């Protein structure tokens, strides 16, 4: 196996991955993320509501629970901006049940400038004019996008509007001029997936399933 090109991209396209986790899933889920794909990120951080020196996990000043999801996301990005801005060009959020092929994310981002305000993920179309990125599938912000996000909260241009993390974030990013990018491959196939591989490969979704009306780009079966 020759991983030369992959190594070159590792140096050139620096990615910081922060994983949304919590005290209850640290050892059951986040542990396996840490043992597997997180190792391929230039920097990997685990965001919890409780600090854990040994893991290590960052203790954010939030509570656990879906209603705190957007707060946790904001605090996590603020933390990353304050402590790690210089260490990476792109900043990814993932859940502790997300699997990421980091090499392929680097391919996606290789031709893009991190100084441009843009973010990528699984694009959904409702509610936000330019669309927003699904939280479950993971999304990645350019350095400029992160700067604008943090600045927006500091100036109160954006505030905590709802607990629906992905939608609220999408609305804020649109407000501050961060572009919703097209993450599809050269054949127009999606690269971010909100469901497990088995679902995308074998499930037949019924016509009334919400997914059909949410996808920004046409779904190819």
């Amino acid at each position: 196996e020759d991983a030369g090109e992959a190594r070159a991209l590792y140096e050139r396209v620096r990615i910081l991955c922060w994983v949304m986790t919590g005290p209850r899933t640290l050892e059951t889920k986040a542990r396996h993320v840490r043992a597997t794909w997180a190792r391929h990120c230039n920097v990997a951080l685990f965001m919890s509501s409780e600090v854990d020196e040994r893991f290590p996990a960052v203790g954010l000043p939030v509570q656990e629970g879906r209603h705190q999801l957007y707060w946790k996301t904001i605090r996590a990005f603020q933390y990353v901006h304050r402590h790690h801005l210089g260490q990476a060009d792109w900043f990814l959020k993932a859940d502790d049940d997300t699997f990421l092929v980091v090499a392929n994310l680097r391919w996606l981002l290789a031709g893009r400038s991190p100084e441009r305000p843009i973010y990528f993920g699984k694009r959904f179309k409702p509610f936000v004019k330019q669309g927003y990125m699904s939280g479950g599938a993971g999304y990645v912000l350019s350095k400029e996008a992160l700067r604008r996000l943090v600045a927006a909260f500091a100036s109160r241009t954006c505030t905590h509007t709802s607990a629906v993390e992905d939608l609220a974030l999408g609305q804020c990013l649109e407000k501050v001029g961060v572009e919703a990018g097209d993450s599809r491959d050269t054949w127009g196939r999606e690269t971010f997936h909100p469901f497990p591989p088995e679902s995308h490969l074998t499930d037949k979704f019924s016509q009334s399933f919400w997914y059909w009306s949410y996808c920004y780009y046409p779904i190819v079966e």
Partner: protein
Amino acid sequence: MISESSSFVKGVVLGGAFCVVVTLLGHIKVGHGTKARHHEHHHIQAPNKEDVLNLSEGERMELSKSIRVYCIVLVKPKDLGHWAAVKETWSKHCDKVEFYSSENVKVFESVALNTNDMWVMMRKAYKITYERYKDEFNWFFLAYPTTFAIIENLKYFLLKKDPSQPFYIGHTMKSGDLEYVDGEGGIVLSIESLRRLSRVLEDSDKCPEQGGMLWKLDEDKQLAICLKYTGVFAENAEDSEGKDVFNTKSVGALIKEAMSTHPQQVVDGCCSDMAITFSGLAPNHMHVMMYGVYRLRPYGHTYNDALVFLPPTG
């Protein structure tokens, strides 16, 4: 009256005991088959990568093309879901695949064997296969519909093995003295083994249709017994690190085991990089395997395989 009935009872008991003894004696014969080998376990290895790389381009092409694998999948109507998945996925990579079913099934084409008994199914399938295909293929791979196979890795494994020699390869197990290939992991026979098998199948003493025992033996064990009579012995297939390449469990199950036995090396330790089979898969998982094995690639990593086996066109 009483003395007569007690004689009768003694007679029944003696007759029964005699019957048991005769049957058991028939069983003991098997154990003392041929004394060709006294090894505890037979192991057989994948080819050395260096040996293969040292061949010329032309030799490698020749070798790739010379290995022709015929796949037998034993199915029953209850396996329809798995049957469909196998049909749509890995079996397309065999040079030819045929489904041998217990009975005719309208939905799919198959060779109907008209029996529900797994051992009889296996016998018939092998017999028919030998008669029809002995001149067309040199390797014969038998699988159950819950098995997933990577035929390219099978071909690589068989690369430098002479099919005119009696090979009987897979994931082996031991039952007493008998070493047999576990059907769950897939069974590989060379043409020579198949030839010998088709002959001994006619011998109702050595290789009867009814096990000839007090209790029924599984078909994979029966196969081993019959083959042993012809001097063909089961060999456990391994890669250069000693890892099994035929697996009787799914990737998920093997990973789970690895997480408890060697938690620091789960992915590296669980399975061979050139695994040929996994078993116990649900139909949907076969599609996930196809995606993971043949489609998904990490950008920037190039894999220079010593050989390329192209699946048959169509």
